[in-house]
């Protein structure tokens, strides 16, 4: 029973992380129709900048968090302006932007290697200590992620559904041409979506930096996980992404328990393919 509970809690932590990782990616996809392969690299930059400000600069974790998120937001807007915007309206835009965002990923990773070197770094935890839930022990930092993730996602949902700017993001994502007719500045909306998605990546990177070592490749595995979550959920709403994150996080935790670490990725990909065969629009996607 204790093992099951520990696995459940571990699944919750994974689900929270995956939901955060995937939400920015999903926001960019639903608004612009671009899969941002630099999303993981932006997480890494966020973590490195936060580490530099808090550890090297000695300003503490919270200024580091703000600096990390601000940097990735600006980088996101720059990536959109330089590597996405020139290709809007082109028939093969999705393919072109796969290449340009991959290029951004490589540039960011190599730049990080030059700036910060290959030595492992780690951010201090936001809250020190451990928390025991009926015998299942997780760090207070991980518990904070489990609490923060839903709050951030609720705030994001409120923003996209309850504010005019958020609704303009949805309108542009659903019908760009008609949105322009409503007076919405479509290119500005694209930049906003990319900046917001990158900010979420930066925030996730800072949270990750407290539980994983920060290296230039910190974002590589989270990027793949975020993509699985977004595709599995159905390339659609935030709710679908959160639902998929919960399913995959839990599945991963219980698969590690039953099949072991080695076979878990294989089983997850098999599950993803099976879902896509049965439901080509993803688990929660609409046809």
């Amino acid at each position: 029973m204790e093992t099951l509970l520990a696995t459940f809690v571990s699944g919750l932590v994974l689900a929270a992380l995956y939901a955060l990782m995937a939400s920015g990616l999903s926001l960019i996809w639903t608004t612009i129709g671009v899969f941002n392969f630099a999303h993981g690299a932006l997480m890494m930059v966020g973590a490195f900048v936060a580490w530099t400000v808090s550890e090297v600069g000695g300003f503490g974790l919270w200024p580091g968090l703000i600096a990390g998120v601000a940097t990735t937001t600006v980088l996101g807007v720059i990536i959109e302006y330089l590597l996405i915007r020139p290709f809007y309206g082109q028939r093969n835009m999705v393919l072109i932007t796969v290449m340009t965002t991959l290029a951004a990923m490589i540039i960011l990773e190599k730049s990080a290697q030059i700036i910060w070197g290959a030595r492992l770094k780690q951010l201090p935890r936001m809250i020190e200590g451990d928390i025991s839930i009926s015998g299942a022990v997780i760090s207070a930092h991980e518990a904070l992620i489990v609490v923060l993730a839903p709050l951030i996602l609720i705030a994001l949902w409120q923003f996209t559904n309850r504010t005019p700017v958020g609704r303009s993001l949805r309108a542009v994502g659903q019908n760009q041409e008609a949105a322009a007719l409503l007076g919405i500045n479509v290119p500005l909306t694209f930049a906003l979506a990319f900046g917001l998605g990158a900010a979420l990546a930066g925030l996730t990177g800072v949270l990750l930096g407290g539980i994983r070592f920060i290296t230039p490749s910190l974002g590589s595995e989270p990027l793949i996980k975020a993509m699985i979550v977004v595709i599995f959920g159905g390339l659609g709403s935030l709710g679908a992404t959160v639902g998929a994150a919960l399913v995959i996080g839990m599945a991963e935790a219980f698969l590690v328990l039953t099949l072991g670490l080695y076979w878990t990725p294989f089983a997850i990909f098999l599950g993803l393919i099976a879902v896509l065969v049965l439901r080509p629009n993803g688990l929660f996607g609409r046809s």
Partner: protein
Amino acid sequence: MPVLELRHVTKRFGGLTAVDDVTFGVEEGELLGIAGPNGSGKSTLFNVVTGIPFGASSGEILFDGKPITRMVSHRIARLGLARTFQKDAEYPDLTAKETIALAAIYGRGLNRRAAAEAAETQLEAAGIGCARAGMLTTALSVYERKQLMIASALVMQPKVLMLDEPASGLTRPEIAALNAHLVKINKGGVTILLIEHVLSLLLSLAERLIVLNQGAVLAEGDPQEVIRDERVIEAYLGGRSA
């Protein structure tokens, strides 16, 4: 001075000239009909004027005396040149009220409360009741979706409204209701450009008619005279006499 003026407007796609040296003006308050066989360049002409999704290859377009030929589409909309699409411009995840409120906020610069009130007024005028205002646009009927497009344009208080086949897919009673609605809008001071295949609607509304053929203006003038023009009959019927 015409409220909207096109001077030698041309749109080319490679070797194909979709709009060919079109020149005409629309006076304030006028209801101008635009007709022509399929593929004659009617919708492309609207696209070129509004910049959605492309502008003109050459020529000049003036709105209220100001050049808008190279202007981005959302700015054109904010200036007061609104349009609807031939296909329903629906947003699967937005409600009817949210759609109109967005247009009021971004197209007219209203705050949220004023935009919500303006949206309710337009929904009422469009015949979309309160009960259906909160429904997703995809859940509305074809007629309601057409009316929603018009309401979204009207909430921006445009000077000129360009309607691309608003009657397509509608039943006779719905076309009659649309006819009455358009008369009311026009009498309210909105200049209308109307592309329509439902000839009865076009002829009952249009004060002047332009017929396009192969991207160029074939005939222009009084609607009843234009439809009797030999060249127009030939363009529509492919060489046979009516």
